């Protein structure tokens, strides 16, 4: 049976990680993510896991890749400045298909910015921060419950698709206290890393399968293979053969694109009869949810699409929404990073407007409602 507990967001992320089977954490202290490290420095040794404080975020990212190759589910947590430093080895983990979870509790940037204030300015960095075209998965929690549940999902996706998963929290949810339901371990759906079944001679650690991945052998268990950041063949050896590199790209993109039904997570509220809709994610989705409740009391047909998976972007669902409503309002703590995606998909079908700020304050339900009513007045 699930138990109810009062937790704050960072605590729920740490407990979610333990529940998901995370047994290695490497990190560097940074506000507003530090509690995750503090809690895990206590909890991981209790469950036989490893906690190590590294010299910087570059090293933290490197260490979790090394530990993941050593067979442990691994994670690190940081905020904007540290996330910038992690981009180098994040790209390494993408390219060498090493599972890991990178938690970014977003704060106002750029640079040191507003360390204690919430923002959602790293959405595009999560997508394109590391150089080169590449697939990525990014989840964003909109409540303390999400912090727990989606952290478990993040580890599952990382292992299942052999990719880093970026967990885009923000300082709104990370410091928020809520009562959440903590499932018993028997109720949790945990993806265990599969072991290769073929002989070491036949094993291809980086098989270019379409829509899936090869099982990742643990170092030291008889499958000696090579891991590199260079473009490589199916055995992991560097190659400059353009035909092989093309096959690799197809594999890399298809392992995500062929599994969108599994990866795309979102919640819908009162969208069935909605004439105007909100698309929100992260901490801002709480204000959006509240705005829908008030609007409905006032007789405004407002609905909400709350995104939990940000990348890959839920294109089909958003496109369908643009066909069913007159207007979409996207509140976010940046100047329109998700709104630009919605505009692209709407392609003029529905009006798309934003409610934006990045000054350290949160967006209130009243501010969202003000934009909604303004749009209703504009609608003929």
């Amino acid at each position, binding site marked *: 049976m699930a138990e109810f507990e009062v937790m704050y967001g960072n605590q729920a992320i740490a407990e979610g990680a333990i529940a998901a089977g995370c047994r*290695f954490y*490497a990190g560097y202290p940074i506000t507003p993510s530090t509690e995750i490290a503090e809690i895990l420095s206590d909890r991981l*040794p*209790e469950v*036989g896991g*490893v906690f*190590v404080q*590294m*010299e*910087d975020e*570059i*090293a*933290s990212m*490197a*260490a*979790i*890749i*090394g*530990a*993941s*190759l*050593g*067979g*442990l589910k*691994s994670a690190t947590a940081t905020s904007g400045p540290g996330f910038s430093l992690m981009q*180098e*080895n994040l790209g*390494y983990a993408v390219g060498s298909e090493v599972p890991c979870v990178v938690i970014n509790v977003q704060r106002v940037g750029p640079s040191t910015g507003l360390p204690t204030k919430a923002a959602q300015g790293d959405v595009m960095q999560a997508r394109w921060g590391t150089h080169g075209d590449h697939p990525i998965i990014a989840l964003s929690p909109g409540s303390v419950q999400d912090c727990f549940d989606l952290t478990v999902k993040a580890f599952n996706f990382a292992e299942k698709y052999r990719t880093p998963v970026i967990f885009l929290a923000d300082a709104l949810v990370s410091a928020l206290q809520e009562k959440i339901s903590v499932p018993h371990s028997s109720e949790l759906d945990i993806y265990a890393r599969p072991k290769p079944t073929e002989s070491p001679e036949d094993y291809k650690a980086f098989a270019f399968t379409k829509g899936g991945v090869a099982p990742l052998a*643990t*170092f*030291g*268990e*008889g499958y*000696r*293979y*090579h*891991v*590199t*950041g*260079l473009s490589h063949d199916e*055995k992991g*050896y*560097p190659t400059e053969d353009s035909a092989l590199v093309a096959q690799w790209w197809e594999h890399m993109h298809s392992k995500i694109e062929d599994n969108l039904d599994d990866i795309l997570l979102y919640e819908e509220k009162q969208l069935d009869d909605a004439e105007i809709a909100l698309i929100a994610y992260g901490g801002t989705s709480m204000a959006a949810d509240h705005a829908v409740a008030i609007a409905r009391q006032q007789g405004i047909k407002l609905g909400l699409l709350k995104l939990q998976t940000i990348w890959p972007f839920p294109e089909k669902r958003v496109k369908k929404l643009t066909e069913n409503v007159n207007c979409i309002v996207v509140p976010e703590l940046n100047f329109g990073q998700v709104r630009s995606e919605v505009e692209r998909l709407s392609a003029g079908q529905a009006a798309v407007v934003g409610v934006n700020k990045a000054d350290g304050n949160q967006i209130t339900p009243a501010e969202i409602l003000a934009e909604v009513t303004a749009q209703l007045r504009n609608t003929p």
Partner: protein
Amino acid sequence: MTLQTSHILRDYMRPETLPTTWCAGCGLGIIMRSIVEAIHYQGLKKDDVAMVSGIGCTGRMSGYTDFNSIHTTHGRAPAFATGLKLARPDMQVITIMGDGDAMSIGGNHLISAMRRNMDITAIVVNNSIYGLTGGQSSPTTPMDSRTTTARHRTFERPMNLEVLARAGGAPFFARATVNHTASLTKLIERALNISGFALVEIISNCHVLYGKMNEQPVASGMIANMDKETMRSNPLLKKRASYPVRETATGKTYLRDSNSDAAQSSVAADTKDRGVIFENKGSVGFSRRYFSMLENIRAQKEHAGRPDD
């Protein structure tokens, strides 16, 4: 490099990855053979060894040898190795880095791994130049050298890895050259047995880039000059060179001066292996400390769980 050079080498290579990208006469082939021989003589199983390399000519070594191997990003090998060692404390983790890799872009990781006393056998190949990118100045390029980024000669001081190793708290530091292959293998064997961070600096030759720009265009000549090169980058050896020389059956041996740096260090070098600059015999590595802490936590929990206690 051909596979006929050593029967031992053949069993530890990945033939499909050969030939190497290294130039003819490069010291890296000698170093790769010494590492493999050391692993062989120590009786380590290939499955139990991980080779973690950085970027550059040296970084390519991990691909050629048949171990569990990671060719990491530039300078980050110690950090990748830290994660791997703590996930698999039973494995022998070796990092192999170049001088730019270890002392410039990866300096922080090297220092921190030393301070942490992470259980890594760290080999730094010092050829005084960035090779793979084409001969740019490195943190160990001697003063007054020509490089492709110092056409008017270098004026920055080269870094001395020994001093860094002492300050960082590494329990073992040795310096060898590709001119002394037998002692090189022995030094690596000794380093493999250290609990904690064992650092071996190997002076190598880049006659193709550094040599051609600095009047030493031939590999054999450059390698023959290595004792001088070693002294230039190592004040301790320079000092030692000024001590009285004793003739022995095997050749010249330098007598130790009781006032030398080595004698003054907390634990003096074992004089049996030339090249060991210092060694702290009581070293206990990070992973052994960490997992004994886990044992204590488990024991405390079991103790607390018993109702009669």
